[in-house]
């Protein structure tokens, strides 16, 4: 079955154990992949920017642009589909510093820290992460197994390992 594509500044939560979630072109953005094996709930958020105070209007139009408005919605949708906070596996991927952009702002690292701060304040443990570097990533989450895979252009696919992500 074709995976459900999560676009840039997008979010999806699914119950179908036969489906996967996939997101492409993860540069400085962060993808949060969450999974509850018992409830067969898989969710993924692909956000671009750390803080909706940067642009309130944009956040109203699309809360998934920002970490602080997107992450709570991801988890809320997962809970509504039967996920339990204590059962959730949570992975962070992305936050690269893509070479061709013209910024010293290091938005990738800001996005990563924003996600970690929000999760810490919400009492959610991160089980693994693979962040930083200079390459864009594609991320795939299988609902049946809860396994998270990622790849960069020209490289083979790798699997996320809890706590120690493969960079």
């Amino acid at each position, binding site marked *: 079955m074709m995976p459900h594509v999560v676009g840039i500044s997008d979010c999806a939560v699914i119950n179908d154990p036969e489906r996967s979630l996939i997101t492409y072109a993860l540069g400085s953005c962060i993808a949060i992949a969450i999974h509850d094996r018992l409830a067969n709930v898989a969710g993924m958020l692909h956000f671009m920017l750390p803080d909706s105070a940067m642009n309130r209007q944009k956040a109203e139009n699309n809360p998934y642009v920002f970490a602080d408005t997107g992450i709570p919605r991801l988890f809320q949708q997962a809970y509504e589909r039967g996920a339990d906070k204590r059962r959730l596996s949570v992975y962070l991927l992305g936050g690269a510093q893509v070479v061709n952009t013209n910024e010293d702002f290091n938005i990738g690292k800001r996005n990563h*820290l*924003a996600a*970690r*701060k929000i999760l810490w304040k*919400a009492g959610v443990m991160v089980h693994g992460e693979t962040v930083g570097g200079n390459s864009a990533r594609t991320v795939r989450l299988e609902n049946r197994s809860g396994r998270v895979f990622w790849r960069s252009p020209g490289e083979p696919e790798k699997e996320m390992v809890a706590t120690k992500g493969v960079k």
Partner: protein
Amino acid sequence: MSSLHQAVAEATDEVLSTMFFTMLDAPPETAANEPCLRVRVNFRGRWTGTLALCASLGASAEMAANFLGLDGPDSPAAPEQEAVAKELANMICGAALSRLDNKEVFELLPPVVCELVADEELPLDTESQVAEQTYGVGAGFLQLKLRLDRPA
């Protein structure tokens, strides 16, 4: 950048990122005039010396809220902010010293909050080394000064 400066910079970045989820920015222009929370950590071992930390009140509140996982409009109480600042200084000092020499044991003495007025500087001897860094943290700043009184 000297190895001492690099050690302080890398240690600060590591601590602020890992347990405070905070990005270090360029220092604001008004840093020199703001009231701040000051902490001092003395150490001994292969070197003796001091790490002095000065955080603007806004930066102190933000870092304390991040560290403690507090999510809301109210700032942590002053005693909590002081305790967090002491732990921040403790960790930056330890991380910096570990970078300078990973082989020998050092001892950090308990961090203390200093008076808000500037402390008198101890006279430097000819072999002292000092590294000073100032960063923007949120809308405020964080200043660090590491002083080694005995050469490697």
